[in-house]
């Protein structure tokens, strides 16, 4: 059993239970109710880490989430978490914590040598030092800086825990459960509205738990417990401890992180570690309290130098003190409270050093009025300090801890998340919320500058009543219990002048008064420049304890007031948020949805290799036993389809059902080519342009009835085309009688291609004459298959073969593929995947996404004549611009290498047979390339300047990336069956 040498009487920890934990491998004990920081303090551990830049020994500074120093690494394996503030880490049995930024040990750290070179590591150090030589930027400086930067380390293992996102709605969100928040929540809860009370601490109550104040006739903490009991009993109230509201977003939306299981070794089964809540609040009251600020003096960063209010909170709430002998350094009456509370706990307070010449006396200790601390001693923690008394003499005093109070800053952060600027309040020498708050937000208590308990209770009730009045709810003014109402008595004092040694402002980023002075000398005087040049306030604590001190020093140097100097903008999040909480469930396979085609199960059974197309998984090819290379498989699929018949799932193409009396007129305006006269029972290829005249998407439109079309889109553009068609329908031509429904997922669709496709389908389709006369190329019909199953049949061809596409309701897709394969057995039918599909469309010279690449026009595609000049349609007016119609415009051509052993690479560029190879002589580029098993040579589709007139020309195809140069012949893009005889057969 270890002895908790700095544990005192009282407090809210449960002494009945002991909790074991380790820090840097040493085992200690604490109690439920402890944080890691308080438990280490009780055990006499003051040194918790090394600072970021100078590797100075550091201990705990603060009590709550504002802590800049005590960052530690928790847990192991997948749950390892760096840079966790020991002040907010709840103790649990078996907690493993380690210090950071030290090597080899915390007590003996090699990089503390940086501290000796501190005069070279001042503000702007990176900008000045790592400038030259330029060649060192990437190879030397960056790796060096990266190795030195950062504090903790991340585990590269997967986080085993789940994180969730959730949504909450309420009439009143109360942020913070101190006296103001409790009173606001109570007032609103009694009025019967939906209330959420969110508090960052594991035990709500705020400073009432940390002070010795009395409310009414009971201790403040007891009053808080009583209010919480009443709130917990009401079903219109949701209490959310361990929940930090991290941002105020537009229209009353607040983000909150609930640490559901951070205080447990592992989350209980079925529960997440953290939940990121999106809270929709009609009104909100910010009761976030205030944060104490330090005073800067020489070597004020030694472990043992702490904020006064924090020392008081550890003593009163956690029954832990940093040392048995604690001095106080203050510029205001609040520091005297710390002294009084410590004395009441039996702690020796050798003196109170008050910068005010007229400071009031403190019972039980010496007062040095008008005095300052000018230095400290102690290698790994405070041992003694030096004072400069009012008369100029100095005195040395031994102490193991120093409680410093420079005044309190209202926590105005959330009031600034909608660009609101805080205002300066001379009475408390701090910024308070300004006039422009996020809509629906009010501020109460210390966050509003009401620093007394009475002020908090009164303003909390008032804010809740005003918020509810906005919403039309009557409220009853609660009886305000009697509470302390001491005025703030403070003389602004920011840093001790005329002493040797560096005085720290920003502990986490190691920014000193000297750095701010240097920034001023180099004219980085605006607060935004000051922040970036010195990194003041840019650490993970966002300068909660340091910003104002830095501003005050700069204000002194420029001779301006602090409000004239201004503040930087506070942005969400209020405290650091783990990536896990932001990601929620969207990790791994759940990062984006997977869409499976109707034939997916069947294709898996066939051993298909799948590829991702958008969110879809499509069969890429179907390898057979003995095939050792994908090309072997794909060549077989192509040849067998062209020889007999093949089947391919084409469900992923977008499908849009277009119905209404004006359906044809509507499509006529959507497509560049004409659709008004398409007969019922016929399909037409359609090309859509963007309004700027560039080709957008292509597909087919089948007219099933006078007022009914089925449109297909490319897989990638299915959603976008539908969105655009709705735009045209609602915004451009609002009175056309036409309705649109996306039916992409309603129909399973299969391409059946090859000379035997008709024979195969005759076995499937019920009682329909599929002869060429009765059902010619580009015919379509609603039919039944397999003895009555509803289906649609289209005679369209992407492969160039005699081909059909057959669609059945999605739920029959699996049965359909099996029926097709069974019916095709006698023809040696093959399933083919996206790879063979691509090869066949390149052989046929059909454009796809590679050709419709966002820079090309119908003219480039060789489809210029399709664009109707006789009607209004999206894109036709601007497609006539000169720049898009130059005489030597790119045209789609085919390419074949002179030597079939040479590759054709997509992306390679065409150059004349002789002459320079450079961008100025570029003639065009390859968009698609494949090996054609039919022609037994690589082939490609390319855009070539004036390409239609250059058939037969021999050119050089250059690929500078891979250093190849191949001679190719320009040919028609229709490599296979150029006159289309097969598809019409």
């Amino acid at each position: 059993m270890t002895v908790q040498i700095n544990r005192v009487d009282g407090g809210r920890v449960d002494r009945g239970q002991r909790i074991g934990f380790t820090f840097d491998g040493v085992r200690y004990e604490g109690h439920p109710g402890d944080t890691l920081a308080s438990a280490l303090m009780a055990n006499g551990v003051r040194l918790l880490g090394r600072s970021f830049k100078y590797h100075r020994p550091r201990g705990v500074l603060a009590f709550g989430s504002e802590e800049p120093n005590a960052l530690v690494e928790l847990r192991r394996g997948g749950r390892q978490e760096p840079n966790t503030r020991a002040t907010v880490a709840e103790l649990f049995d078996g907690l493993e914590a380690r210090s950071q930024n030290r090597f080899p040990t915390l007590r003996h750290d090699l990089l503390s040598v940086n501290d000796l070179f501190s005069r070279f590591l001042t503000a702007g150090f990176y900008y000045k030092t790592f400038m030259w030589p330029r060649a060192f930027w990437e190879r030397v400086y960056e790796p060096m800086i990266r190795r030195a930067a950062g504090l903790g380390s991340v585990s590269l293992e997967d986080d085993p825990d789940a994180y969730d996102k959730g949504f909450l709605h309420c009439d009143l969100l109360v942020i913070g459960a101190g006296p103001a928040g409790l009173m606001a929540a109570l007032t609103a809860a009694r009025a019967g509205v939906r209330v959420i009370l969110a508090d960052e601490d594991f035990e709500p109550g705020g400073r009432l738990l940390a002070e010795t104040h009395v409310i009414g006739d009971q201790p403040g903490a007891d009053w808080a417990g009583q209010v919480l009991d009443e709130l917990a009993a009401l079903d219109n109230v949701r209490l959310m401890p361990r929940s930090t509201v991290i941002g105020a977003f537009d229209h009353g939306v607040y983000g909150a992180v609930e640490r559901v299981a951070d205080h447990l070794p592992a989350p209980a089964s079925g529960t997440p570690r953290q939940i990121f809540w999106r809270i929709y609040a009609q009104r909100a009251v910010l009761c976030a309290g205030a944060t104490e600020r330090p005073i800067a003096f020489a070597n004020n960063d030694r472990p043992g130098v702490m904020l006064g209010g924090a020392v008081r909170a550890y003593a009163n709430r956690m029954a832990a003190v940093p040392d048995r002998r604690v001095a106080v350094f203050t510029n205001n009456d609040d520091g005297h409270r710390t002294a009084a509370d410590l004395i009441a706990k039996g702690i020796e307070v050798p003196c109170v050093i008050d910068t005010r010449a007229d400071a009031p006396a403190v019972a039980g200790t010496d007062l040095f009025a008008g005095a300052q601390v000018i230095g400290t001693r102690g290698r790994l923690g405070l041992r003694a300090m030096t004072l400069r008394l009012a008369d100029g003499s100095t005195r040395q005093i031994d102490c193991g801890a120093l409680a410093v109070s420079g005044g309190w800053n209202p926590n105005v952060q959330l009031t600034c998340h909608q660009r609101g600027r805080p205002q300066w309040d001379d009475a408390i020498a701090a910024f308070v919320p300004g006039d422009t708050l996020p809509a629906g937000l009010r501020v109460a208590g210390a966050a509003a500058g009401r620093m007394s308990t009475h002020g908090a209770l009164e303003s909390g009730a008032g804010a809740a009543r005003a918020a509810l009045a906005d919403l039309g709810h009557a409220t009853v003014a609660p009886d305000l219990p009697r509470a302390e109402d001491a005025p703030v008595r403070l003389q602004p004092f920011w840093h001790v002048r005329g002493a040797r040694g560096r005085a720290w402002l920003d502990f986490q980023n190691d920014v000193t008064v000297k750095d701010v002075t240097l920034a001023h000398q180099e004219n980085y005087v605006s607060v935004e420049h000051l922040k970036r040049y010195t990194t003041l306030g840019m650490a993970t604590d966002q300068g909660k304890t340091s910003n104002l001190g830095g501003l005050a020093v700069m204000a002194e140097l420029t001779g301006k007031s602090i409000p004239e100097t201004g503040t930087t903008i506070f942005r969400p999040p209020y405290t650091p948020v783990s990536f896990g909480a932001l990601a929620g469930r969207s990790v791994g396979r759940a990062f984006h949805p997977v869409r499976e085609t109707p034939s997916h199960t069947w294709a898996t059974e066939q051993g298909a290799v799948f590829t991702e197309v958008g969110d879809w998984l499509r069969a890429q090819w179907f390898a057979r036993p003995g095939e050792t290379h994908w090309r072997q498989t794909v060549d077989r699929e192509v040849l067998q389809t062209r020889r007999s018949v093949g089947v391919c799932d084409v469900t992923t193409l977008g499908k849009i059902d277009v119905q209404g009396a004006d359906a044809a007129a509507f499509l006529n305006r959507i497509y560049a080519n004409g659709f008004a006269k398409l007969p019922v029972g016929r399909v037409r290829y359609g090309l859509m342009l963007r309004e700027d005249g560039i080709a957008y998407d292509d597909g087919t439109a089948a007219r099933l009835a006078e007022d009914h079309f089925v449109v297909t889109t490319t897989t990638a553009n299915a959603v976008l085309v539908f969105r655009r068609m709705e735009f045209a329908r609602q915004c451009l031509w609002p009175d056309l009688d036409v309705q649109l429904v996306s039916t992409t997922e309603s129909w399973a669709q299969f391409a059946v291609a090859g000379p035997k496709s008709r024979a195969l389908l005759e076995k499937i389709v019920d009682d329909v004459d599929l002869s060429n006369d009765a059902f010619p190329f580009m015919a379509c019909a609603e039919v039944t298959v397999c003895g009555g199953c509803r289906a649609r049949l289209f005679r369209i061809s992407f492969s160039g073969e005699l081909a059909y596409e057959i669609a059945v309701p999605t739920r029959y897709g699996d049965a359909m593929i099996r029926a097709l394969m069974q019916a095709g057995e006698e023809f040696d039918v093959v399933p083919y995947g996206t790879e063979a599909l691509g090869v066949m469309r390149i052989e046929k010279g059909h454009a796809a996404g590679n050709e419709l690449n966002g820079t090309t026009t119908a003219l480039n595609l060789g489809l210029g004549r399709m664009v109707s000049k006789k009607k209004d349609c999206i894109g036709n007016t601007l497609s006539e611009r000169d720049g898009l119609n130059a005489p030597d415009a790119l045209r789609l051509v085919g390419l074949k290498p002179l030597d079939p052993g040479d590759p054709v690479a997509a992306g390679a560029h065409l150059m004349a047979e002789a002459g320079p190879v450079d961008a100025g002589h570029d003639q065009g580029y390859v968009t698609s390339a494949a090996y054609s098993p039919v022609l037994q040579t690589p082939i490609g589709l390319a855009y070539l300047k004036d390409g239609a007139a250059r058939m037969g020309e021999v050119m050089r195809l250059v690929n500078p990336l891979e250093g190849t140069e191949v001679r190719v012949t320009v040919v028609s893009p229709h490599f296979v069956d150029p006159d289309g005889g097969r598809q019409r057969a």
Partner: protein
Amino acid sequence: MIIHHPLLGPRDAQEFVYLGDASLIDRPDWQAEDAAGAFHDYLYLRDNPAGLHRELWFHEQGDRSWLVVTRDTTTHEITSVELARDVARARGRSR
């Protein structure tokens, strides 16, 4: 942000897809004298006001209505939400 859909009430902005300036409703007449110039201005010229802005939002994860939302770009305050179809009709696009 929350958009008060005229038919469906308050909806989170995440349900919507943003397009841009509501002037995209005012598609020029293709047969006008200077149709090319008018289309050029329609497509490429936009105001970028600091203040009230009328813009098109599509309720893609909802009822697929296009809406014209009047939003203050400096505060994100939304002062009116209309069905784009009604706006289009009011601007003479019925045909």
